[in-house]
């Protein structure tokens, strides 16, 4: 058995080492451009995925693998892998989706001259992501955390030449004087720096905990709660946790650090699918999933971290609504999906937050994680499909599409499947079940904030259904746009994407539906798994009776009627409105907005991203630069440079001229000074 465990530990190490190794071999493959790097990437991703899968049986049985090795011995830190059920499931999600996206990217990126760089960063990303998932301590996790950030930076700015077609936003449009039009390199930088703000908070939180606990390890933090008591006594426990959550805010693009995600869409679409939809942005959620139980388990010692969970819940709720609302009006398909991503992650945060506020921690926890999994699948699928559309149409604007359903039937079908999951179409999509679980856990949490958050969740669901329908309608229905007609007249007819591209998102769409069909059972087994996990590892006992876990899904038996009703209603209203505007085209949306100053104003606000982006630019880019320029001009240049260099030079020169002026060359004056000096010295001595 020990040997077996050793093998599993090795597998856990290799899950993240293999992609890194694959990344490092990439530069060596430069000589064989073309397909070889792609195959190598697929091999690496597949190996990683298989290794991850090998961990799955043990994890599903509730086991965990924990292995450590010496690292920074001088500070007594060790590196390690922790493959508990949470990590293993996450790891598998990451690994398999990455594999699919890598396959997709071999088609999507075909012929790119910088393909080696692309694969390097993709594999680097996968490795870093797995490192986050499998680390057994915060510091090591932070390596992965920054690694994914780095990969994200590099890949957002992948097309570093800043060509016009690689920008996002509408050229020339300004919001509060800030250009709403971003080049890839700018976007990469923005993403990196904004997430860095989160990372800085996370570091601060980590350090606070380390200062009291003397460890970064997740396991060690659970065992002994003396550190938490000490911190609680100083009132530092909640701040530390909130600071840690700051990292999650940054990485998962939650309010108020949400703005980078939209510009991240300048990267190749495969990247958007992988990093900015399926995996990296989930890292924040994963972090909360890692920390949530630790914080909640402290409740047993009487250290309630309620405020932390409140912050999580509210940040999630606000983000969900804020981003979803903007998704209703944006004309760019990838940006709509990006808004949707942020919004959906808000749901997950909301779930984890209310989980901590309720007795039923497991419910919210499971709901959030379930949503994470389902969202990873359908959003990756949607992004890849969007990539195909971009690929074919050559424009990121939905207004340049239209009427494509006849030309791209497979894509059309898969987008509907994944889109329905996003909308939460009842009973057959994963999205429905996971969202419903969130609704239910929010509703049942019993927190004082339950109702407002629930209301926000429902409104957001309506909006989600609406913008998804809008997207499908604008892309596939209606008349062909001028752009498409122009393309056709030039002989570039609209056609289906190549095999390597549509298969991955087809698979994901299919899996979405497949799991959706038996969604409740899936949820129950997840619930069971996490229930056991939380009980065993953290001692969190949930008062649900064990008897409530039937082997087979008794349809709707475990569902909350209010939540279910709200969910259904939201779906209906949203899709109905969307259908009316964009599929059936009974009402012209432009005229509708123009009809009423309130609508006009709202439209403007939404399109201007609630002015948050512009405000951030004003406060954190323009003003500091302005300040720095002022200091540079009026302090550095004048006081320091001129004052100390030139000023000293001048002062000395002036003094020299004075002294030299006294040296007239005339002996009498010299002698006069001599005499006066003599007198002076005499008097000085006598005084």
């Amino acid at each position: 058995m020990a040997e077996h465990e050793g093998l599993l530990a090795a597998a856990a190490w290799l899950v993240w080492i293999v992609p890194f190794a694959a990344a490092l071999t990439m530069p060596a493959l430069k000589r064989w451009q073309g397909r070889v790097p792609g195959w190598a990437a697929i091999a690496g991703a597949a190996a990683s995925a298989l290794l991850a899968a090998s961990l799955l049986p043990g994890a599903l049985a509730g086991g965990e693998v924990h292995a450590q090795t010496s690292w920074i011995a001088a500070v007594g830190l060790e590196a390690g892998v922790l493959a508990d059920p949470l990590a293993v499931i996450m790891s598998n999600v990451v690994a398999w989706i990455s594999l699919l996206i890598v396959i997709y990217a071999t088609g999507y990126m075909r012929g790119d001259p910088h393909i080696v760089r692309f694969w390097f960063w993709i594999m680097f990303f996968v490795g870093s992501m797995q490192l986050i998932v499998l680390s057994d301590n915060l510091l090591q996790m932070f390596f992965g955390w920054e690694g994914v950030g780095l990969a994200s930076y590099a890949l957002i700015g992948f097309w570093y030449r800043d060509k016009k077609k690689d920008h996002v936003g509408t050229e020339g449009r300004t919001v509060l004087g800030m250009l709403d039009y971003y080049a890839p390199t700018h976007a990469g930088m923005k993403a990196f720096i904004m997430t860095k703000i989160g990372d800085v908070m996370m570091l601060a939180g980590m350090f606070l905990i380390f200062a009291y606990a003397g460890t970064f390890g997740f396991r060690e933090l659970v065992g002994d709660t003396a550190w938490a008591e000490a911190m609680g006594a100083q009132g530092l426990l909640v701040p530390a946790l909130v600071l840690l959550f700051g990292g999650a805010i940054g990485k998962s693009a939650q309010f108020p650090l949400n703005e980078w995600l939209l510009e991240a869409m300048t990267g190749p679409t495969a990247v958007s699918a992988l990093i900015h939809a399926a995996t990296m942005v989930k890292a924040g959620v994963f972090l909360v999933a890692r920390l949530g139980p630790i914080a909640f388990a402290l409740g047993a010692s009487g250290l309630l971290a309620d405020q932390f969970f409140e912050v999580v819940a509210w940040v999630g709720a606000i983000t969900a609504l804020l981003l979803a609302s903007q998704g209703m009006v944006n004309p760019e398909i990838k940006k709509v999906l990006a808004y949707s991503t942020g919004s959906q992650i808000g749901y997950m945060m909301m779930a984890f937050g209310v989980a901590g506020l309720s007795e039923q921690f497991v419910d919210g926890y499971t709901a959030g994680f379930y949503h994470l999994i389902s969202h990873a699948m359908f959003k990756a699928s949607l992004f890849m499909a969007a990539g195909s559309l971009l690929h074919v149409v050559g424009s990121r604007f939905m207004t340049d599409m239209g009427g494509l359903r006849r030309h791209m039937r497979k894509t059309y079908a898969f987008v509907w499947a994944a889109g329905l999951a996003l909308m939460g179409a009842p009973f057959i999509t994963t999205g429905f079940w996971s969202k419903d679980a969130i609704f239910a856990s929010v509703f049942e949490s019993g927190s004082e904030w339950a109702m407002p958050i629930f209301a926000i969740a429902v409104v957001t669901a309506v909006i989600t259904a609406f913008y998804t329908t809008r997207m499908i309608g604008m892309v596939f229905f209606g008349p062909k746009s001028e752009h498409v007609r122009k393309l056709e007249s030039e002989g570039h007819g609209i056609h289906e994407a190549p095999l390597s591209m549509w298969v991955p998102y087809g698979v994901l769409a299919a899996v979405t539906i497949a799991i959706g069909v038996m969604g409740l059972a899936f949820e129950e087994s997840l619930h069971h798994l996490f229930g056991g996990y939380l009980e065993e590892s953290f001692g969190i006992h949930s008062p649900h009776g064990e008897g409530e876990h039937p082997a087979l899904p008794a349809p709707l038996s475990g569902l909350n009627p209010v939540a279910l009703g709200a969910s259904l209603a939201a779906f209906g209203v949203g899709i109905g409105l969307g259908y009316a505007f964009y599929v059936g085209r009974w009402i012209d949306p432009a005229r509708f907005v123009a009809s009423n100053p309130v609508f006009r104003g709202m439209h403007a606000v939404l399109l201007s991203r609630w002015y948050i982006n512009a405000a951030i630019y004003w406060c954190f880019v323009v003003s500091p630069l302005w300040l720095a320029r002022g200091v540079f001009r009026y302090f550095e240049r004048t006081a320091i440079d001129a004052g100390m260099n030139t000023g000293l030079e001048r002062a000395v020169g002036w003094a020299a001229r004075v002294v030299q002026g006294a040296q007239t060359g005339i002996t009498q004056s010299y002698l006069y000074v001599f005499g006066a000096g003599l007198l002076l010295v005499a008097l000085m001595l006598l005084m």
Partner: protein
Amino acid sequence: MTNELVDFTLVSVALLCVGIYGLAVKRNALRMLFAVEIVINAANLNLVAFARFVPDSGGQTLALFSIAVAAAEVAVGLALIIVAYRMYRDIDVAKFGTLRG
């Protein structure tokens, strides 16, 4: 000996000051030489006066040395003035002012 030491000293101080005044004011090199001589003589007077009142032979000895040295000095000084005169046809020290600053 009826005179007080202080009287001689005062005369000496007066001469010293006159000498310094002459050096500080006069531009004629020869007059400056005069002034130097006056100062030296003031010093000698002082020396001999103290020697008388101490009394000791050392003061007088030094006065003798001082007179001899003054002679040597004057010789050199006059030679320098003559050289200057040959060059400039003038002995106005204020005109020897090329070195300055």
